[in-house]
């Protein structure tokens, strides 16, 4: 395995909701147009330090995501670089039409953060799970949709988002591996990162599932299955060039995402395969179902989204 720093028994996690404020301070230092827009989400969302550092560039609008989202659009219209943060289901679902009309349709550079996306809030129940955020946003032209796999991805996304022309959605996970990307690595929205080469099989994953997929590849390798692993941190626009290479070279593609298998990373990959053929695909994610409730890692395991379960699923598929 290329990355020999990973210890699958004792993984080093990071909580993006804890470090977000400190990173945003660094971004804000580089560009005085940066403003934070919260919907009763700055403390749990990790922006306490940012509020202290930039009280005049901190806007809090209460439990009113539709307004916060429209307000962010207005700020961007007037030249600001808003970072709008709320719990993922509320920053994407509750204000979907504001994203659609006021941000995506206009093409304004608003950065939308999905706090505790996926099932980060595993115990919080179905209203706080967000496994359809890619699905709704992917339908909007001009959106950039990104799911960071580790600290370096998240940091690069925050710095890079304000250099893009249009709207950006970034997931802000609570429990994600601290480091999985190679060192050094080059980050660019829309460009996947190869973590491991392989033959006859490529696992394309995003966000938290990059680590789990890497773990799965480690298990599979012991069983004689040599899977490539790609960190496809940008779901839209998809790195079709890199994907095309793996379709051609491996003929078997597995996609893994902490998201419904409908209209997320797996569907984006399917769309490419449908155009060109050349590969069969296994989509791993939530199978058009509501997630169960419980501690995060246990919910992941229940739904087959941990390394060993992913490996088992792939092994069965390879045999089948």
């Amino acid at each position, binding site marked *: 395995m290329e990355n020999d720093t990973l210890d699958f028994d004792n993984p080093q996690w990071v909580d993006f909701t804890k470090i977000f404020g400190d990173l945003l301070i660094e971004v804000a230092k580089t560009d005085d147009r940066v*403003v934070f827009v919260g919907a009763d989400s700055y403390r749990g969302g990790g922006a306490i330090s940012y509020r202290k550092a930039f009280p*005049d*560039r901190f*806007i809090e*609008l*209460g439990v*009113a995501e*539709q*307004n*916060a*989202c*429209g*307000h*962010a*659009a*207005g*700020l*961007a*219209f*007037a*030249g*600001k670089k808003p970072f709008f943060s709320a719990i993922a289901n509320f920053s994407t679902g509750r204000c979907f*039409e*504001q994203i659609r*009309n*006021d941000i995506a*349709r*206009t093409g304004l550079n608003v950065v939308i953060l999905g706090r505790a996306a996926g099932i980060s809030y595993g115990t919080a129940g179905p209203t706080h799970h967000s496994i359809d955020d890619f699905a709704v946003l992917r339908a909007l032209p001009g959106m950039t949709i990104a799911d960071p796999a580790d600290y370096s991805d998240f940091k690069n996304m925050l710095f890079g988002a304000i250099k893009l022309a249009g709207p950006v959605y970034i997931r802000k996970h609570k429990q994600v591996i601290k480091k999985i990307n190679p060192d050094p690595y080059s980050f660019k929205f829309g460009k996947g990162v190869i973590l491991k080469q392989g033959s006859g099989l490529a696992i394309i994953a995003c966000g938290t599932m990059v680590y789990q997929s890497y773990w799965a590849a480690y298990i599979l390798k012991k069983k004689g299955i040599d899977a490539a692993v790609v960190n496809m941190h940008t779901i839209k626009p998809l790195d079709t060039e890199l994907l095309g290479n793996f379709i051609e070279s491996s003929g078997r593609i597995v996609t893994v995402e902490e998201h419904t298998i409908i209209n997320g990373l797996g569907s984006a990959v399917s769309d490419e395969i449908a155009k060109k053929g050349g590969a069969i695909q296994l989509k791993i994610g939530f199978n058009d179902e509501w997630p169960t409730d419980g501690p995060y890692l246990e919910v992941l395991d229940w739904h087959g989204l941990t390394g060993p379960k992913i490996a088992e699923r792939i092994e069965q598929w390879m045999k089948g």
Partner: protein
Amino acid sequence: MLSDKETIDLLEKSYNNRITLLNVLKKCGDAHLGGASSAMDILTVLYNKILKHDPANPKWEGRDIFILSAGHKAVALYVVLQSVGYFEKEILWTYNALNTKIPMHPDEKLLSGIEFPTGSLGHGLSVAAGIANAYRMDKKDNRVIALLGDGEAAEGAVWEAALGAAKYGLDNLTIIIDVNGLQSENYTSDILPVAPFEPKYLSFGWAVRTIDGHDIKQIYNALSEAPYEPKKPTCIIANTVKAKGVDFAENSPEYHHWAPPSDKMADDAIECMKKCYVMEVDKIGK
């Protein structure tokens, strides 16, 4: 203060705009007659006397920003923008046509003078407040003005935005609510009673004035004297008549949209409008 002459001049512009509006309907078919005509005096005063803007330089940084939150009144805005020089009159006759620059709801990518795409109700105040908040942060003195409908007030996001604008003391923000008492399907009092507006906005922390939305002097004074209180956004409640000037259509739920069934009906409406203009001129100075 406007002199009587200036008032009559604006009134004439406004009724010429209404006649142009009816000609758009005559040539192009269905449009939102009711709301367009109820808002016409307000829009005419805004673009002729209140807003800092430059049709030759629509993106001028010093301009005030106007957001038509009630986007379905766009046909009135198109007529007004054309009348002050934003584009050639021929474009008006493309309303409802394939690839028009003036769709039923405004599109900022198609036409200079349109600041923001609206049409889904309840968005405009949030956006306007965001713009006003950015100007406040940057200590710019550009005003932000938004026009809302009374039926639109059923959208909860309007009230979210009203609270947020008050929190940030956006006295560079003015909204005008075109209270014509009707909405798409029927009277607002029947669909969802939202009146009275004044106590609601007062309790939300706004400075409020209620006017006759067809009285040119009241419109001008209300808009030019804002803000009424420092650190408070301004709400102007403009009581209006839906389909103002077309007597057979006024205050009727049947004329939210209208496609004149014949040229004669359109011409009859234009004649009504001319008579209404004479009556309105008679009121001035009295």
